[in-house]
């Protein structure tokens, strides 16, 4: 995985353990005049460190991030592809190749008469999945899932179910996003969901989100196979739940979020009191955080007061379609390290948000089960449950 917290999982975990964030002043072409001036960007990223020039020319940054994360997952897992038709790749992304579109439309509406022929293959949301499949020789089911900010969780959930059902032996799943280009940032500004300073999840003075970028991929494998080959196992995915608010495009409904959390618990045959930690959707928008708190209370009842809840978007930014993948990694950090990551940027309690948000720094705790929430624009909710193995 790669994010504003660093180029691999190691740096990501290290930053979470130290309570550091990757949010800073926005850098990039044509950024002047934006109201929002901060973001969680990959400042040291160089495509040439990962791709030949010709490959880099053919891949938008969002697809590059997916491929790099996929390579790391395969390597970290020591996974050797023996039956390529029994391996799946599922990639989540909200916006696909936005930087490519931005650049080409800038040309088109400026001096140039036409756009580059790579525009479509670079933009398409399955670009990362396709490249990774070619590179690894994976011939099983490969596809992209796009459900705005829930994309990665939907991707991971689909992959989890495919492995559990025995449709494939293993799956590389997660998501990636590269939102830092003028047009896309302006679109986010226009929807008035951004905090001009930095996101402050669950804090009374919160004003919106801070965008992030990056990619995360998990290698999912049936337990028996993973144990059989002596693989390093971070955790077991035990449940996945989805729901749709069927209500409003941008105004979330607590009932929808609660339904997805309940569905995940049901999928895992697990009771609410078995959950120890929730990696919240926690965008820092006025609407989400109160809504999510109400939904957690509805699902967990009195156990909600014993839960540790944090939003790691406050560290790696809201990476939209990659959010679920980064936050899955944060949830695995929590389980493996026995430490709930902190909610950064928190300034003052909000009566609407009355859970334990771990806002005074990362906290050591005995954590066995973690829930990871994502709730998307369009009212599409996807929740994963992880258990320490």
């Amino acid at each position: 995985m790669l994010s504003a917290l660093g180029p691999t999982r190691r740096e990501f975990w290290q930053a979470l353990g130290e309570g550091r964030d990757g949010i800073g002043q926005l850098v990039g072409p044509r950024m002047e005049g934006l109201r929002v001036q901060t973001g969680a960007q990959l400042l040291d990223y160089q495509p040439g460190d990962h791709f030949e020039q010709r490959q880099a020319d053919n891949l938008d940054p969002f697809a590059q991030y997916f491929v790099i994360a996929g390579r790391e997952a395969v390597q970290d897992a020591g996974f050797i592809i023996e039956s390529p038709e029994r391996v799946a790749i599922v990639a989540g992304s909200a916006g696909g190749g936005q930087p490519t579109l931005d650049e080409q439309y800038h040309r088109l509406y400026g001096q140039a008469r036409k756009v580059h022929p790579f525009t479509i293959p670079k933009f398409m949301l399955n670009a990362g999945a396709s490249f990774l499949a070619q590179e690894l020789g994976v011939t099983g089911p490969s596809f992209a899932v796009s459900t705005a900010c829930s994309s990665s969780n939907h991707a991971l959930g689909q992959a989890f179910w495919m492995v559990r059902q025995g449709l494939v032996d293993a799956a590389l799943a997660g998501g990636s996003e590269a939102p830092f280009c003028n047009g896309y940032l302006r679109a986010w500004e226009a929807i008035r969901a951004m905090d001009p300073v930095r996101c402050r999840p669950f804090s009374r003075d919160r004003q919106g989100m801070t965008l992030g970028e990056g990619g995360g991929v998990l290698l999912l494998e049936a337990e028996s196979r993973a144990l059989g080959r002596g693989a390093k196992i971070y955790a077991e995915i035990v449940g996945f739940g989805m729901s749709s608010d069927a209500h409003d495009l941008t105004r979330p409904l607590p009932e929808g979020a609660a339904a997805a959390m309940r569905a995940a618990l049901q999928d895992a045959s697990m009771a609410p009191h078995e959950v120890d930690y929730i990696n919240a959707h926690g965008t820092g928008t006025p609407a989400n955080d109160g809504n999510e708190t109400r939904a957690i209370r509805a699902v967990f009842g009195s156990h909600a007061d014993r839960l540790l809840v944090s939003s790691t978007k406050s560290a790696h930014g809201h990476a939209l379609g990659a959010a679920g993948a980064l936050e899955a990694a944060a949830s695995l950090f929590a389980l493996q390290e026995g430490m709930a990551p902190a909610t950064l940027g928190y300034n003052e309690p909000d009566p609407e948000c009355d859970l334990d948000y771990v806002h005074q720094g990362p906290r050591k705790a005995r954590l066995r089960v973690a829930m990871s929430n994502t709730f998307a624009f369009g009212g599409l909710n996807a929740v994963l449950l992880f258990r320490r193995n």
Partner: protein
Amino acid sequence: MTKPRPANRGQLQRQVLEFIAAKLNRPIEDIPLDKSFESLGFESMDAFDLLFALEDELKVSIPDDVARSLDTVRGLVDCLAQELRL
């Protein structure tokens, strides 16, 4: 930097070969005129990229149906020569 418009078919052919040579990272002499782009090591997107760059450089526009039928370097040079009336 945009090169001057080729004055004759020989110059055009040289220019096209230079483009392809740079793209494939091999000497011009190793690019046979009558071999298919595929056998030269072009992937599908490379051909689009080549046409895009040549159209830009030579200030011509090759119709889609013609572009799809181009298979060899010679065919491409013929097509461009016709567009440029060389």
